[in-house]
């Protein structure tokens, strides 16, 4: 196992795996968390993100592999001896203590003096705007207040690593947005490495420095939010990231300048030549899977010729200033988002064009994205 260079405060997971009996929760995970970054572990439920977090916290011991905090091996160090703090989905505040007692609890168990505790508690409650709650009972707080207290309780220790396990999932939508902004602000202020677990890609994209996408115990891709959006490693990530699912269009590109068969040949359209050239440079196969985000599907009333597909509006949803169309092409469906005020009706015949520079192509077999 390689040891990171001394002095670095990066956190490394080296070939970490966790099995529960015969069930594999995390599979050979290789991940480096950079010093003071806000990394989001993102994935659907059961993907291993919470297990990964528990291993980082020391609540769960890896079956194999190593975990390094900077130059310190912590693989088998229990939670109480790691310098980590954690915010839980269920808040996990001690009901027998008041807010002040909860925030100071971790410092008290570590033998910090009373004066220092009092000072740190007042600093952190100022940072989180909860000064007026300090003497309240936990049961008297709202969900949002509880989560602020829970964050304060975690931050007050100035931990080496700050873990947040789906912290906003039991809070209502409006407050959730507010707290997201708050987390980014707090991260800027306290300059601590944070790992944030969520299943909500929108949440991940809006707060992360980098996002690590997991699926079925495996790490799919790590990178800044925009790169996940622009350059997903594979079709699954492309579908998972983005407000609306990416359209998956199996295509046979045929000859340059000719017609391409879409959806197993059930319809045809002319492919942009530049796009064809870029795909041809990346792969010898003419059969690829196109990934077209709804925002790059253009809908118009008039055909532009061979590059347009005839379609019919099946349903539509108004999303504020945008409209999401579900378009029917033969027996297949495409999603399209338009921001124009021009409004098509259900069952209206329309024409669809792709915004070719933004269309992604994936290997039809491995589903890996082609670098085009």
């Amino acid at each position, binding site marked *: 196992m390689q040891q990171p260079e001394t002095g670095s405060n990066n956190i490394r997971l080296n070939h970490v795996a966790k099995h*529960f*009996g015969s*069930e594999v929760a995390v599979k050979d995970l290789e991940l480096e968390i950079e010093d003071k970054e806000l990394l989001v572990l993102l994935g659907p439920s059961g993907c291993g993100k919470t297990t990964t977090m528990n291993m980082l916290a020391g609540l*769960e*011991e890896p*079956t194999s592999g190593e975990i390094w905090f900077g130059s310190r091996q912590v693989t*088998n*160090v*229990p939670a*109480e*001896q790691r310098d980590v703090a954690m915010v839980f989905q269920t808040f996990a505040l001690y009901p027998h203590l008041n807010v002040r007692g909860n925030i100071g609890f971790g410092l008290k168990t570590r033998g910090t003096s009373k004066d220092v505790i009092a000072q740190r508690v007042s600093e952190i409650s100022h940072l989180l705007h909860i000064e007026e709650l300090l003497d309240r009972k936990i049961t008297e707080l709202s969900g949002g207040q509880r989560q602020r207290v829970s964050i304060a309780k975690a931050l007050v220790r100035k931990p080496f690593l700050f873990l947040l396990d789906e912290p906003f999932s039991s809070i209502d939508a409006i407050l959730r947005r507010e707290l997201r902004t708050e987390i980014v602000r707090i991260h800027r202020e306290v300059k601590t490495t944070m790992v944030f677990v969520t299943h909500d890609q929108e949440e991940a994209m809006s707060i992360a420095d980098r996002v690590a996408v997991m699926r079925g115990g495996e790490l799919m891709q790590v990178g800044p939010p925009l790169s996940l959006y622009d350059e997903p490693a594979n079709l699954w990530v492309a579908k998972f990231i983005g407000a609306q699912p990416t359209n998956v269009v199996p295509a046979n590109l045929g000859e340059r300048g000719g017609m391409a068969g879409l959806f197993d040949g059930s319809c045809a359209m002319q492919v942009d030549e530049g796009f064809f050239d870029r795909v041809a440079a990346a792969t010898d196969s003419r059969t690829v899977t196109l990934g077209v985000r709804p925002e790059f599907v253009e809908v118009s009333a008039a055909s532009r010729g061979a590059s347009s597909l005839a379609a019919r509006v099946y349903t539509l949803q108004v999303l504020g200033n945008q409209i999401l169309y579900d378009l029917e092409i033969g027996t297949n469906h495409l999603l399209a988002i338009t921001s124009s005020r021009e409004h098509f009706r259900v069952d209206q015949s329309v024409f669809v064009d792709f915004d070719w520079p933004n269309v992604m192509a994936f290997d039809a077999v491995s589903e890996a994205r082609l670098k085009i």
Partner: protein
Amino acid sequence: MAELSPASQDQSSRPRRFGLGMTDARFGLLLSLPVAAILILLNLYPFLYSFWLALRDIDLRFGIDEFTGLDNFRKTLESQDVRDAMWRTVKYSVQVTVYSTLLGLGMAILLNEKFHGRTLLTALILLPWAVSTYAAGIVWRFLLSTETGLFPAVLFRLGITDRPPNLMNIDTALTWIAIAHTWHIAPLGVFFMLATLQVIPQDLYRVGRIDKLNAIGRFRHVTLPYLKAPLLIVLILNTISAVNVFDLIYFTTAGGPGAATRVMTYEVYTTAFLNLRLGLGAAEAWLLLILVILVTLAYVRVLYRKEKKISTGEAAA
């Protein structure tokens, strides 16, 4: 709670090798050591010791104490008194179980309805259970006896009998004690079943109505499936309580009239502590024990089945 093991074993199932030499295994063992000691010294050892006693002829009146092998067991199995007592225990237990389970179910269903005074009544019905068995015995003796009894007095005042009748006669005494026992233990089943009734989703009853089920149909198809597990446990708990009855008999009839209420526990008591033949008493107690163990094994089976259901339910969720 009825689970026999933590709901999510996987969370901490692997022993940890770190930190002050402490592992989950050691922590668990260390903290359960005092209880294990109590179980071994005060439950397991006397249990085995009673078997040793059963192999000896011990008569404290004459200071006899000698090894006689399985002789006590032979005597026990051949004794007509023991056979009669066992039969009475069975009769008694069946009565208590049936009465108290049905009454418990009825009261639970009643208390699951909304009415004024429900909270008060729910608290009140706990009282007979909180009162000790011996006090229940005294109370019911006073209720039933010809001299002081409410029931005989009522029957007389209503003109049903020409004088306060003797209710505790050879034919009826056992049943009256079973009723007293029911008064004492039915509340337990109520709390058990009420807790379950309260978690049945109300939507199921609405769906039942939409599907045109009448009250009986809704009880059969919605309530009963939920109640199955607690109902079974209550049945078995009530049975065990009935088999082990002693105080009630001692305070109401002391085994009489004649031998009409001499159940197995009373037989053991007579042999071991009135006739002071501890060895023979121990052998008789073993017979009782076998009966109780059979019921308890049924209990364990029910619980394990329930647990399996819970854990698979969690896996699905």
